[in-house]
């Protein structure tokens, strides 16, 4: 019985940790997408500036 209870607890703990990892991965993926987009936009803006100067 104890062993069964223990394994339920540990299954719950593993599930909780899995959620934390998924949450973190999802947040990181979003941030990296935003960073890429922003770098692309900055690059473009710099290109426009150069064109104007020329």
């Amino acid at each position, binding site marked *: 019985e104890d062993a069964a209870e223990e394994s339920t607890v540990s299954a719950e703990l593993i599930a909780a940790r*899995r959620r934390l990892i998924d949450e973190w991965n999802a947040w990181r993926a979003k941030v990296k997408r935003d960073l890429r987009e922003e770098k692309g936009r900055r690059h473009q803006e710099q290109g426009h500036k150069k064109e104007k100067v020329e």
Partner: protein
Amino acid sequence: MRPILLQGHERSLTQVKYNAEGDLLFSASKDDTVNAWYSYNGERLGTYSGHNGTVWTLDVDYQTKFLVTGSADNLMKLWDVQTGQCLYTWEFLTAVKRVAFSEDGELIVCVTEQRAIAQGAIRVFKINRENGQDQDPEPISMFHPIGSKATLAAFGWDNNSIITGHESGKIAIFDTKTGEEIQTHEKAHHDSVTDLQLSPDRSYFITSSKDKSAKLHDSRTLAVLKTYTTETPLNSASIAPIRPYVLLGGGQDAMNVTTTSARQGKFETRFWHKIFEEEVGRVRGHFGPINTIAVHPDGRSYSSGGEDGFVRVHFFDESYFRARPYGELEPDD
């Protein structure tokens, strides 16, 4: 592998920092000097002397061309990393508590202390990277955070935002040009914020506090992502690359604790799991509180600077990289 002990400072360390490549480690101290060391063998490259007071802070730019230092002598100095020559000096009315380069090395943010004679100020300087000796004495912007004193600052998500840490436990984001407070979190910590270090992509950062905790925050919203609660006041916190850990350092001064003898030489760097918020290990060594921690940019070693005047460079052994204390549950990065 045994840690390398860097001996050369005569008083406590205030900040240690690697350059972008990680071949050099810089250390600032209350002995008024900054040293540069080869990080792989601990040999000293040189000393930057010229300050007449505790050097509170330093930073080195992404090209390892310029070093900037801030001191209790009210000066901020720009140095040529290779020659050790002081290129330019800015003078203020109060001590310089924190300096930091922007990612592209074009800007420096500088925090000066609040005293009766002067308000605490955050200044941003545009750096002439072509001719280091030809600098503008005037900042491109200057602002005075109201309320709690700012003691820490760094460029955040991009050059347009500056993240600050305050004596009250507050953290905030200011607009670099206008000085407008964009975001604020008054009670990020319950006591003074002691360190602020960003992740490599600057999207999140870690703060340590005298309130015995460290926290991970979103660089754009200041939202608290993670909290690491210890049982000792913290002076420094650093985010490790490669492995999902954060490194915390601090410790009560011997004179402030009653059970000192048992703790001699046992001031520890604590390793916490970044995602699960659980302590996973400790490395002891210093004979006094740990004032500053930096992780090598390749994530294979780290350095700590102590109240004891020593810098210790630790190289992780294979078990550090192999260990999976939580099984195969690993974040992507």
